[in-house]
């Protein structure tokens, strides 16, 4: 993925650039919102990491001007302000995620990947989650290079989870996707399909958690 980092602290920026480059991502660094704006005007990026406190135009201003121009670029906000409201206003302004400084570089990279994955899943047929890949056109599932054979309902369920990563899905949400109006199902059926799916994708970086009383949540841990 290609990332644009807007951060005025050189030490932190260097570390982030170093980490992302080591992990095989293309990353460009600018130190102000104005520079970011001009680069974004003629270059394509997969996502933007944006610090709030910048000299000159603030990160929030850049974010809202992007959203006013209907630019769908995924934006992750970095904030260090004491006021916790910052996080709320960041999401209100159209940020896709936020991290509070200080953060783990690993966490930052994981969040970035999740954002890019979400954005790509909307347009591409191929969804890549860590070592698990799913082609929505051919319905093939791979862990690493190995193709996994799944039953149709398991594929449907997997696709539902992959398109709703990090979101809570209730049993009804899943059943509605898996069964037609006419089809009768027992509440246990969903559970059984999930158990088989879990077994099949064991060893992948996709984790499906059960939360009793709420539902199910899929998360990519890479």
């Amino acid at each position, binding site marked *: 993925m290609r990332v644009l980092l807007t951060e005025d602290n050189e030490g932190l920026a260097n570390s982030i650039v170093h980490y992302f480059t080591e992990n095989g991502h293309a990353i460009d660094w600018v130190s102000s919102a104005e520079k970011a704006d001009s680069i974004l005007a003629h270059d394509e990026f997969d996502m933007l990491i944006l610090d709030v406190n910048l000299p000159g135009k603030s990160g929030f201003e850049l974010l809202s001007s992007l959203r006013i121009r209907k630019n769908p670029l995924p934006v992750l906000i970095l904030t260090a302000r004491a006021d*916790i409201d910052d996080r709320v206003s960041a999401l209100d302004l159209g940020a896709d995620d936020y991290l509070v400084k200080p953060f783990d570089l690993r966490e930052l990279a994981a969040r970035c990947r999740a954002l890019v994955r979400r954005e790509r899943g909307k347009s591409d047929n191929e969804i890549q989650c860590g070592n698990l890949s799913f082609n929505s056109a051919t319905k093939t599932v791979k862990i690493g290079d190995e193709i996994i054979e799944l039953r149709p309902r398991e594929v449907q369920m997997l696709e539902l989870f992959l398109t709703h990563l990090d979101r809570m899905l209730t049993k009804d949400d899943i059943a509605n996707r898996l069964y037609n109006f006419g089809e009768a199902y027992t509440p246990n059926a969903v559970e059984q399909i999930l158990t088989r799916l879990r077994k099949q994708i064991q060893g992948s970086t996709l984790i499906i958690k059960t*939360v009793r*009383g709420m539902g199910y949540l899929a998360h990519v841990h890479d």
Partner: protein
Amino acid sequence: MFTIKEHLKKLTSSRMYSLRQKMLTRTALLMCTVLAILSVGVWHYANTSADYSYDRLLSSASVTMLDGINVAKNKVHIDLPYSAFEILQLAPEDKVYYAIYGPNGDFLSGYSDLPLSPSVTEQASTQPRYELHFYKQQKVRFIVRHKRLSERSVAGNVSIILGQTTIARDEQMRDTLYAALTTLMAVMAIALLVMWVAINRALSPLSWLSSQLVSQSPMENGRLPATKILEVAPLTHAINNYRQQWLDALVAMRDFIADASHQIRTAQATTKAQLEIALSSKNERVDKKVVEAIYQDHTKLTRLTNQLLVHATIVHRGDHQAFTPIDMHHFLQDIITYAVRDYAHTNIEFEYVPASENITILGDEIVLKEALRNVIDNAVAHGTSDRSTTHGVIRISLETYDLDCRVCIEDNGQGIPENQRMHALERFVKVGTNTQGSGLGLAIAQSAALSHQGRLILSKSELGGLAVCFSLPRLTETLHASSNH
């Protein structure tokens, strides 16, 4: 209209004024008005009394003069008695003018050009008439009196017009007026003086208070000396109370800063020492284990700093009371979703036990989110660390409890022994085998609960570990309606 009103309000409210000056000016104005009204009265009285006394002189002199008018030899005979003029001599500076008219109105004697003349219709029995006229450039008071002559030869009224200048009576009037006015003014002056003394006396506790407050530092734990004045006692009491609250808050803050500095500096010292050792190592390559240790300690420091800031923010926001209605079911679902996502890589299982009815509370979403997150983090860190064989379970439940709602976070870890639970709520206190935490998680939760007029209850969970329950007042329909207004 509105702006004018506001402007006026601003003008009246912003101007400073002296209470003493205002009261004195108002009293003085009132007294001047009273003085003016009284002066008119006194002037009128002085005039009347002077007229009354000198008119008597005029009256008796005119009677005496009429006595000297008789009929002799069929003619009106005038023999003015000396005593009449003696009477008038009582006003020695004044001049006297007179005229006597016969029965047919013919002028008999005296000054013929007096500004008034007797009228024919007047009867001798009628009361004498007094008039004030200007004659020869002077004010002259005249009396007109008649006498009936009933001789065969001369029958009819003889009239006498007797005038006297008003020097004496004016002087008496002035004397009376001045004497009365002087007394009045003296009384007024004394009243003003008494007023001034009274105002000063009444205001003296104020200056006493301010001198007391100025001489003491607000940071000192000194109370204002007791006062015997009943009206001032509540004020000194209120000031003492207010000050005590400030001092308590200050002490709490001082303790917090001291504790916080100790904690942060200790953690910093650890990392710094480790870095120094790594730097001074003779090996060119730094041992990865050393870096790992530094990283761990730095993570602890980061967590500590974050929690200190969160704690400070919660305490600060608690003063603001920017509360909104929160639907607890959705609120908890959001929090659990985030927690599940963040701990998805661990083998911890989350459970949610919703309430049977909708529960809304009035609260600060951000504060509660931080507090719950801290308790969940605690449960994750301590609830499961000692049981590698079984899955960690964290149960979050919501239920109603009378007028309160209870949000409980339970784990299946070791828990905290009952005798240490109260202790665990204190800042920087780490209970049991916990060495990684900052000792602030539960303190943050406690502050958040208190700022919502609720409380934090620690107990033993059914799951075997610790149960941390937030008991928060529910928002009932009536309260909800009033909060919307």
